[in-house]
């Protein structure tokens, strides 16, 4: 397609990117300040560390972006991470199965949880908050049952390599990159992707347009569960155990990153690109506070303030544009 740089495409570009420009600026400013205060921040080792740390939250956030787009929510992510980690670890003792078995099983466990969430929300009409709250408790319970309440260790080094480096790039970050590209592309360029926006933007209109609303909602929860499963496998590989208690509160970090990234909690607006920016911003700030030797107790206070502050700022900007 021919590219025209006229005023119209410029305004259009601004309306697409406008909400995110603030985010990009915030990210760059934070990086700049950190680089001045702690030159070590810009070192390859530290930057690699940052992307490694954000990968888990990133995978969860990309998945839950789909759910938030439909106007729903998924609170079960943290528990699903633990469950799929335990499942994968169980099948990953040295010499037991080839590498793909634990990975597939972990993802399948997450997919199943997401599918059940989707079934109750889309078919059963259970509010997403309740359906996924139930799954949050049940999946955690199942993880504890499967592991007997103890960490599942003795993991084959082939699986732990999933958390290692490939050509100096952390594999989890590569996975996140691939997943985010695929998820973002799907949202923008496929029918189910377009339907997600329609269902979240006006469910009644979507129904009258013949869109399979239930199927689309089910799909969103299933994809979200599958990515939580993947995140669980990656986490297990990183900590070399299947921890039944892992992932507590991860869902809230993921939702926070998505909302900071400009996705509306009421559905219909959002993007994977924005979500990634939100994930990065939260990761960089966390890393910076570590480098500045801020205690993790204070870090939580800062994180809470940032979540509310970012969304408050964003709403104010949008409000100003409406007037």
């Amino acid at each position, binding site marked *: *397609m021919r590219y025209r740089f006229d005023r*119209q495409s410029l305004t*259009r570009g601004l309306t697409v990117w406008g909400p995110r420009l603030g985010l990009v600026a915030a990210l760059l400013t934070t990086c700049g300040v950190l680089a001045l205060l702690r030159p070590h921040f810009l070192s390859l080792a530290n930057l690699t560390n940052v992307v490694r740390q954000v990968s888990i939250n990133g995978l969860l956030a990309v998945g839950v972006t789909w759910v938030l787009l439909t106007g729903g929510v998924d609170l079960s992510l943290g528990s699903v991470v633990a469950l799929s980690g335990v499942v994968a670890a169980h099948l990953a003792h040295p010499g037991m199965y080839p590498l793909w078995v634990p990975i597939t099983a972990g993802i399948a466990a997450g997919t199943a949880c997401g599918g059940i969430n989707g079934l109750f929300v889309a078919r059963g009409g259970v509010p997403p908050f309740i359906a996924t709250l139930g799954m949050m408790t049940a999946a955690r319970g199942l993880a504890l049952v499967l592991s007997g309440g103890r960490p599942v260790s003795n993991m084959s080094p082939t699986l732990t390599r999933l958390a290692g480096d490939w050509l100096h790039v952390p594999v989890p970050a590569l996975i996140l990159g691939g997943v985010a590209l695929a998820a973002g592309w799907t949202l923008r*360029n*496929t*029918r*189910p*992707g*377009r*339907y997600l*926006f*329609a269902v979240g*933007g*006006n469910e*009644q*209109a*979507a*129904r*009258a*347009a*013949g*869109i*399979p609303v239930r199927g689309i909602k089910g799909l969103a929860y299933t994809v979200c569960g599958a990515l939580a499963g993947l995140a669980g496998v990656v986490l297990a590989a990183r900590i070399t155990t299947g921890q039944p208690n892992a992932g507590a509160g991860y869902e809230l970090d993921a939702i926070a990153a998505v909302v900071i990234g400009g996705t509306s909690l009421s559905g*219909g*607006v959002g993007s994977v690109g924005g979500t990634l920016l939100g994930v990065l911003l939260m990761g960089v700030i966390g890393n910076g506070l570590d480098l500045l030797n801020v205690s993790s107790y204070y870090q939580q206070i800062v994180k809470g303030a940032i979540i509310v502050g970012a969304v408050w700022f964003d709403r104010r900007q949008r409000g100003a*544009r409406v*007037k």
Partner: protein
Amino acid sequence: MLDNEKHAAVLEACGVGKSFGGVRALRDVSFDVRSGEVHALMGENGAGKSTLVKLLAGLHRPDAGTVRVRGRRVVFRSPHDALRRGIVMMHQELMPVPELSVAENLLLGREPRGRLPGTIDRRALRREARRLLGLLELHLPVDAPMRTLSVAGMQTVEIARAIGANAAAVIMDEPSAAISEREVQALFRSIRTLKERGTAIVYITHKMDEVFRIADRITVLRDGERVRTDRADRFSEAGLIAAMVGRELSAGRLRARTAPGERLLELRGLSRPGAFHDVSLTVRRGEIVGLAGLMGAGRSEVAAALFGLAPAASGEIRVDGRPVRVRSPAEAMRLGIGMVTEDRRGSGLVPLLSVRENITLAHLADCCRGPFIRRARETDIAAQAIAANGIKTSDPDQAVEQLSGGNQQKVVIARTLLGRPRLVILDEPTRGIDIGAKRDVHALIAGLAERGCAVLLISSELPELMALADRLIVMRQGQVTAELDPCTVTQEEVLSYALPV
């Protein structure tokens, strides 16, 4: 009173202007409303009526000019500011608290205090509520939850609320858009009571007959500018329309009657308890069948059953003579049925998606290879639909919510037609859109029939049905009461079959 007229103005805009993101919505408009007067504000959608009243009610601030209350310049920082000075706005979509009672809604924010601090004197609350409703000679149950009232009931409560708050001016934005003729009469009685109490009333409407019944003065806006302000009795209907659109419009039949083709749709004894009962009708190819009746007569429900939104409980639907079951809109579309739903904001458009995306939404598969959208093809299809349906948009990627009501409606129609339906159901396709867009929509409907499409047209505007339909079917309380010839029948006759007995 022999005062200079200027001083009687309760609420006034002096040379106000307002732009939104480079688009000028209002330019140098002056407007005033006096005590005990109904001043109607008319104009096509996008003419600036809503912007003007939002300036007066403190929802927007003018870029230029001033707002005055009783001659004194004011700057409203919020709607609350305006409320404190006695300016009450009744919104198109009313916003009561549905779970609270009528009395609680009436006195929301002004509850009589009880003996203990922070408590409400419930007996005084109900007494005051009854007094206010009594002023309007209304007998609404003050303890009933607000949600049990009809739209008209909620409106009267809002009016009573305005009286209770001693409003100096009340702004009504299309209050009659969603209520029946009988309810309009009740609304007008309430408005007259308000007038007698010296309240100034700004009344926005699209309906010609209404404006001459209720307005003392009329101001016409066009393209953000004031065209004319005058006493209502100095306007003729034709003159008023001409002022609004800038040209004269003809009335009467809009199309010649056609020889009916073969039967496309047949309903036999279709029923859904609580909605409609034993409805039988046929629609032929190339024919427009008008469905007349009051709101709540079951017309939209029949349409919903045909389109699979709310399936019928019993009876038969035949398409091309074959009995069919329609359980979802997708199934209806596969049978060649398309529908333009009532209430384009509620069930028609996805406001945050673009014009292009809204047009292709129902037939996205045509723009796809497998699940993958082919952007170039989608852009082409949308561009063709925009041209074919006369949608005025600067850019197909513009958010559809930024279009005027008439153009939004054309987007919904364009989407429906994209599937090349053999039967098109249109439910109130011209409600709340301006005269120019209305004429375009009428031409689109007539064109559909000309091309051999079967059309089922639901409208609450009888002149529209009589101008377009080949046959007129009247419904009352869920049942078909008459089939009439729109070319010979009178409006009174149609109404006699539509009004409840």
